[in-house]
C-alpha cells in the first residue's frame, strides 16, 4: 500500500470507516455526510491530494451515491457518500476545492441533488430552462428517454 493510503487508513479509522482497495492503485472510501468535510479537508490540505478529477453520481435504488474522484500520481482515491432519495441534500465542497463548482452543478441537474453552499445553486447548467418540474431528473433509473422526448415536445426518433 502506498504512503497516502496508509495515512488515509489511519485517519479513516478515526472517522469510523475503512479504506477498500478496488485494484492495486485504486481505492474507495465510504464516509457519511457528517464526516465528509473534515475528511476531505484532511485529504486536500494535509495529504496534498489536490487534483479532483470529477464528481460521479450514482443511482443506487433507495439512495444516491456521490463519489469524489481524486488522483495523485499513480493513486486514484474515490471518496463516496450516500444520500437518501427522500432528502437529496448534500454539502458542497466548493470552499475546500473551488474547482468542484461545475461538477456539482451537473449533478444538481442530472440527479436532482441540492448542494448546500454552492454559489450557483439555483442555476441550471445542462438542462433547458423549460424542464418540467414534475419530470424526474434524467439520469435516474425511472426516467425514460421517450418520456423525456414526449414531455419536451420533441419528435420521436427512428422507431
Amino acid at each position, binding site marked *: 500500500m502506498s504512503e497516502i493510503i496508509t495515512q488515509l487508513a489511519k485517519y479513516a479509522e478515526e472517522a469510523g470507516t475503512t479504506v477498500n482497495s478496488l485494484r492495486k492503485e485504486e481505492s474507495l472510501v465510504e464516509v457519511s455526510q457528517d464526516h465528509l468535510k473534515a475528511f476531505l479537508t484532511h485529504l486536500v490540505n494535509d495529504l496534498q491530494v489536490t487534483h479532483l*478529477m*470529477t464528481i460521479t453520481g450514482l443511482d443506487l435504488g433507495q439512495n444516491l451515491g456521490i463519489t469524489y*474522484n481524486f488522483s495523485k500520481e499513480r493513486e486514484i482515491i474515490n471518496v463516496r457518500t450516500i444520500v437518501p432519495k427522500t432528502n437529496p441534500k448534500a454539502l458542497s465542497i466548493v470552499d475546500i476545492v473551488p474547482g*468542484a*463548482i461545475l*461538477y456539482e452543478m451537473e449533478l444538481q441537474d442530472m440527479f436532482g441533488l441540492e448542494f448546500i*453552499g454552492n454559489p450557483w445553486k439555483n442555476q441550471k*447548467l445542462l438542462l433547458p430552462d423549460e424542464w418540467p418540474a414534475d419530470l424526474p431528473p434524467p439520469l435516474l433509473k425511472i426516467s425514460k428517454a421517450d418520456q423525456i422526448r414526449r414531455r419536451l415536445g420533441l419528435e420521436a426518433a427512428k422507431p
Partner: protein
Amino acid sequence: MSTPPEKERKEASAGLMEYSTESLVPFGPIHPALKEPEYFKLVLEGERIVQVIPRIGYVHRGLEKAAESRPWIQNMYMFERTCGICSFVHSLCYSQAVEELTLYQVPRRAKYIRTIIAEMERIHSHLLWVGLMGHWAGFDTLFMWVWNDREVVLDLVEAIAGNRVHKSMNTLCGVRRDMPENMEERIVERMKFLTDRARYYREIIDTEETMLARTENIGRVSADTAEKLCAVGPMARYVGLKYDVRLNDPYAAYDEVPLDVITTTQGDVHALLRLRLDELIASANMVSYAVKNLPDGPIRVKIPPIIPAGEHVSHCEAPRGEIFYYAKSTGGRTPDRIKSRQPTMANIPTALEMLKGQTLADIPIVLTAIDPCFGCMDRMSFYDTETNKKWTWSGEELRQYGINYYFPERSKKKQHLAEALRSQTNRCLKEGF
C-alpha cells in the same frame, strides 16, 4: 436567476468566481457563423471584463443515459463520436475502464499501436489549434499553412485506419487492425517533415510581430489558482504544474516509449503556443520510436460479451487535457453506469479566471487558447456597467474588432469595415441600439 446573499457567496466561493449584483440580458447562442453553440455573459467596465458567467449544454446528447441500454462494444462506437478531434482517446479510455473489469490482458503489440495512433491524434489536434490561433489573431496565412501540414498526418491515419477522423481502431482488449506492411519508412519520414515544420512555426511565433502583440502577456493565471481550480492538460502545464497522465499514471505503452513532458512558467498565451508546438515535436519522436520498435504478437484477445460485476475508473491524456471514464457493471450485457468527463469542462473555471482583466479585443484569443472542444464564442451580448447600454456582435465582427484594435493602420483593405465598426462602437456607447 436569483443571487444568493453576499455573506453566503463570499464564504462559499473562497474569493474565486464571485457573483456580481448586476442584472444581465439573456441571449441565444444560435448564430449562422457558429461551429458549436455556447453562451457567455460578460460584465464589462469600459473595455475591461469584470465577470464572465457560462452556460453550456447546447450539444448535450445524453450519451451517459444512452449507454445504459446498449451492449458494451456498441457503446465504444458511441463514445468515439463524442468528439471528432479526440475520438480515439475517448474509445481508448472507455476500453481501459472496461478491460480492467475483465481478467484479460491487452497484448503488447496492441498497446504500441494504440500509442502510435493516440500520438498521431495529438499531432493532428495541436496543428489544428495552432491554425485556429492564427485565424483568430488575423494571421490567416499561418492558418492555411498549418492546415496544409495537417493533411500529412491525416493521410497517414487514413492509410492505417481507413478513415481520417473516427478511426474505429480500438476494441475491447486490443485493436481491430494491424499496421500495414512497409509503412515504417513512410511514417518516419513524414514525422521528420512535421518536426521541421513545427520548428519553423515556432520560429515564426517568436519573431512575427502580429503574433507577439496578440499573445504576449495575455491570459495570465497564477499557478495556485490553476491548481485550486483543478486545471488539466496544457492549462496546468503552462503555469508550471507537472500534470500529465502519461507521466503520472502510465497507460498503454507510455512506460516503455521515451516520454518528454514539457512545462513552462511563462504563463501567458504565447507560452501556450510554444508549449503545444513543443509537444508536437515530442509526439513525432514518440511515433518514430514506437514504429521502429513495434513488438510482435497478437493484436487482440476475444472476450465474451458479458463483463463481470465491479467498478473502475480510468484516465488518459487527450490533446486537451485529462479524460476521465468511470464504468460500473452488474454482470450483464449492458453497463449499469458510465460516466465520462471531458477536459474542457475541467478547464472552464480556469478560462473564466483568465478572462478577468482582459480587454474585449482579447476574448477570441483567450477562449481559443484553452483549446475548447465545444467551440468558439460567436454571438455575444455586451453590457456596459457604467452607461447601462447593451448591444450585440457576431463572431466575425468580434474577430475584426480585435484585429483592428491592435493594428488599425494595417487593415487598409478593410478600411471601410474598420471605420464602420469604430463608428458603430462609438454610437453604441453613446446611445445604444
